[in-house]
């Protein structure tokens, strides 16, 4: 027999007594689920029947939702108490209470007002809560249940019932499908590794010797660019020459890295190394941003080089073909533009991955460079040049005594400027 509104009460009793077959139980659950307006509760416990009685009172099962002030009062007081405690009424009670409110709004309002009068302190916020909080969840039952199903808010039993119902009810199945699409797909955006490493903090800890040397290696290169940077490019009309200001720069560097660890590192000045520069190569780059944007640098020292326009400045991003080193250079660049240049280079996968991990990350060359650039920005001119050295292993970098790339720039008048790349050896003494 099919369960319908005319006979379902008889089935409820059989259901609760456990005398229905499995298929009949499923049909009953589906009927209860499909007719929320009947307020059928299949989880209610049967009253104990004494052995002396042959009958029991089943009137409570006839849930045609007659106003039951006692039940509503009970739920409403629970809600008001929970509201005072800043707690939450349990989910099924919320739902039940909202059913009463919908079916008997007048009685509901009167009862709520009378109960509120019993509280000594004014129940501020309760009305707001009623209006915006608990009881204005999506009213359509299928929507409500489907979201609860997806959010994991259903009890195990409700969950199972919902799944069965969604399989047999094509409309509910479509609703489930549609709500499933509202779950945001995984997002793959990640921060560049260098950016994350800059977030990390330096600790006072013992650093391995090889790392001292790596610090020195990176610092000397930055040091070198202080010299290059001191060139006044607007006044140089031919290929630039090194014009080191060793006295101040060395002192600045000592201040820049003024701590116990770096005090023990002795630098050999860059000019001595620059004398050894070889394999110099030049590229002339146009002054016109529209010309030099995305210009591929044709240089024998560069295996992959590109000029990108950064509004009023440019960035050279290059990977040399001789050593695993990348260069990021900025000219007439604002501090925040420098950040953008770094990140743009990272986005283009033109920089080799940052080698340092964990606690050593704060010692990255990029961090040194950034400090150098920021330091430079505080000086009298606004030019800045910087180099970022990124290697697969700082230890390998030192042990193999690899060369480094430097570059110079020279104004070429109407033709633009000349970019000169040079390779030099770097030596550190501990």
């Amino acid at each position, binding site marked *: 027999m099919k369960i319908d509104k005319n006979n379902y009460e008889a089935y409820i009793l059989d259901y609760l007594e456990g005398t229905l077959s499995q298929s009949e139980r499923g049909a009953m659950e589906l009927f209860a689920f499909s007719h929320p307006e009947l307020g059928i509760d299949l989880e209610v416990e049967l009253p104990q029947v004494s052995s002396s009685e042959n009958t029991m009172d089943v009137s409570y099962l006839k849930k045609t939702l007659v106003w039951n002030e006692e039940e509503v009062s009970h739920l409403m007081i629970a809600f008001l108490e929970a509201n005072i405690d800043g707690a939450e009424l349990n989910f099924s009670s919320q739902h039940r209470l909202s059913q009463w409110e919908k079916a008997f709004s007048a009685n509901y309002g009167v009862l709520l007002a009378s109960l509120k009068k019993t509280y000594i302190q004014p129940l501020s916020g309760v009305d707001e809560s009623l209006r915006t909080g608990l009881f204005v969840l999506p009213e359509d039952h299928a929507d409500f249940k489907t979201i609860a199903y997806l959010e994991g808010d259903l009890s195990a039993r409700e969950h199972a019932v919902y799944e069965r119902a969604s399989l047999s009810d094509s409309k509910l199945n479509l609703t489930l499908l*549609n*709500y499933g*699409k509202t779950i945001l797909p995984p997002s793959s955006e990640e921060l560049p590794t260098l950016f994350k490493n800059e*977030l990390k903090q330096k600790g006072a800890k013992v650093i391995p010797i090889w790392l001292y040397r790596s610090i020195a290696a990176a610092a000397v290169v930055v040091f070198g660019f202080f010299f290059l940077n001191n060139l006044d490019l607007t006044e140089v009309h031919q290929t630039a020459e090194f014009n080191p200001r060793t006295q101040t720069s060395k002192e600045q560097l000592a201040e820049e890295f003024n701590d116990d660890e770096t005090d023990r590192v002795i630098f050999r000045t860059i000019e001595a190394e620059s004398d050894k520069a070889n394999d110099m190569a030049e590229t002339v780059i146009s002054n016109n941003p529209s010309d030099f944007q995305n210009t591929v640098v044709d240089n024998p020292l560069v295996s992959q080089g590109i000029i990108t326009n950064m509004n009023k400045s440019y960035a050279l991003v290059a990977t040399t073909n001789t050593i695993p080193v990348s260069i990021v250079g900025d000219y007439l660049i604002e501090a925040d533009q420098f950040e953008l240049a770094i990140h743009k280079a990272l986005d283009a996968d033109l920089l080799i991955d940052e080698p340092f991990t964990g606690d050593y990350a704060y010692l990255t060359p990029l961090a040194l460079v950034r400090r150098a650039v920021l330091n430079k920005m505080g000086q009298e001119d606004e030019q800045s040049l910087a180099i970022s050295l990124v290697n697969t292993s700082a230890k390998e970098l030192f042990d193999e005594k690899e060369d480094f790339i430097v570059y110079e720039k020279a104004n070429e008048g109407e033709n633009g400027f000349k970019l000169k790349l040079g390779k030099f050896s770097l030596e550190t003494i501990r």
Partner: protein
Amino acid sequence: MTISEYNACVDEYADNLYRFMLKQTGDSPSAKDLVQESYLKLWQKHENVDYKKAKSYLFTTGYNKMIDNYRKNSRQELIQESHVKSHMHSEQYSDLSEILEEALNKLPEIQKTVIILRDYEGYSYDEIGEITNLKASQVKVYIYRGRLKLKEYLVSVEHVL
């Protein structure tokens, strides 16, 4: 929280925080700024913040800073940007995720926030409430309402398509 634990927080949560901020602002530089500010504050307070609470602290800080930024910016500007964005994407959709992104951006800010925290980070109602300074029950309602609107939007777009 020790320095090592702080640095571990960068490894573990920076990408998550960035994604959250990126979805909220729709702007990578702004999202990175918010991430940076959040970590700066965490570092300043690291001695008083328990490592286990660090993720929540970061998200709460980032969320509050984002709200502050919104308040600082002119309301008009935000409305205009929102209008431009919606207009830009109203004609063509490449796939479901794009439609969903569009729908998400149409939600009230708080609904968008709680759904992002729920779906991307898997936060509970209580945890989201802690971040957004709401009660768990309010978070739940906002999520339900948001899902309903998202579904309605997706269905309406499908009808058009």
